């Protein structure tokens, strides 16, 4: 019985050590992303004791339309997915992630974050926010997915609130 308790303690300890701590003080207004924007981003994905870094491109139009892509140093697309009116289509994904981890995970997480509605997504919590000096939205945003057990850090490098007028039709044609 005692050994069972020890094992249970170890298992619980290991579980809690993999999940990062949620930000103590946070509300959705801390994000404050504009209704539409495009950016170059740098992603750090931590999953199953591995840490992957990718650079990519993001274009977003509120509430639920965006295109996100991330590439390796050699230029190969690792992630490519789009959301049109809330429906996710995965164009490329890494083998380490299931299709559900995109369509029910990262895909909807990003929509919640960039729509400033993260509090409505109960599957994730913010772990870090680094503000930018010049604008109201954060430069770096990190969150943890309770459902798929990954941490994702998104650093927005170049940011522009100007997106093409035909964004949605271009997205549909992709």
């Amino acid at each position, binding site marked *: 019985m005692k050994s069972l308790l020890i094992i249970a303690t170890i298992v619980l300890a290991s579980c809690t050590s993999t999940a990062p701590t949620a930000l103590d003080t946070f509300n959705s207004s801390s994000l404050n992303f504009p209704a539409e924007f495009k950016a170059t981003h740098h992603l750090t994905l931590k999953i199953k004791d591995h*840490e992957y870094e990718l*650079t990519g491109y993001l274009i977003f139009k509120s509430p639920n339309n965006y295109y996100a892509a991330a590439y390796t*140093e050699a230029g190969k697309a690792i992630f490519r997915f789009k959301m049109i009116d809330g429906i996710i289509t995965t164009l490329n994904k890494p083998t380490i992630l299931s299709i559900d981890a995109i369509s029910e995970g990262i895909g909807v997480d990003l929509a919640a974050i960039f729509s400033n509605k993260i509090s409505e997504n109960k599957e994730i919590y913010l772990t870090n926010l680094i503000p930018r000096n010049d604008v109201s939205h954060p430069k770096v945003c990190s969150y943890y997915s309770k459902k798929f057990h990954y941490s994702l850090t998104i650093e927005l490098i170049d940011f522009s609130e100007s997106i093409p007028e035909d964004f949605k039709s271009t997205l549909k044609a992709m």
Partner: protein
Amino acid sequence: MCRYLINIFLLYTILTTSGISQGANQFLGAKEKRQYLESMQQKLAPLKQLKANFAQTRKISAFKDELISHGIFYFKFPSQLRWEITKPIKSLIIFNENIAKKYRFKDGSWSPRDFAGAEFMKIVMEDILSWTKGNFNKTSETYDLKVSKQNEIILTPKSTKTTTFISAIELTVDPKTKYIKKVLIKDPGNDHVTIQFNSFSHKEFSDKLLFKEPNK
């Protein structure tokens, strides 16, 4: 007779200006292609090391946007590569003795990172090593290889598995030095990546630790 000559002249003009006749002749024949690749390999045979700056531009055609990164490429014969990205995010890939490792510069020091697409990266590193020496023997097994009269080597994947993420690779060769000065990687969609090399140097590297794990 005069009308006949005029017709011939008109046909010639149409063919040459429309590019139809150029299309038929823009690639070297089998013999010329072999000679071209042999001369390239011969010219690059004495090459023991090479350094170049590069600008990598990814074109997001659907939104008419570009992602640009800059870096430095180091090659040391026979099997060492250093692919250092300096902007916008400092990162480093070292390929040494057939093993590729990745590092990220953060908070003043380098730390190891996992590869996304590790298998693909190893293939890329091996290809870069071979192409830098003008060796396309192994490449010919996996790609259909054509050489244009404009010093371009066009590689089209034979495997349908590869064509799901690369539709073609175009290498532009400097006619004098035979260094590859531009690499164009075309995606199955309309996106593409261009890597433009410049400031080539084949002097021996003073830093003996270039291909070792970077200081932490």
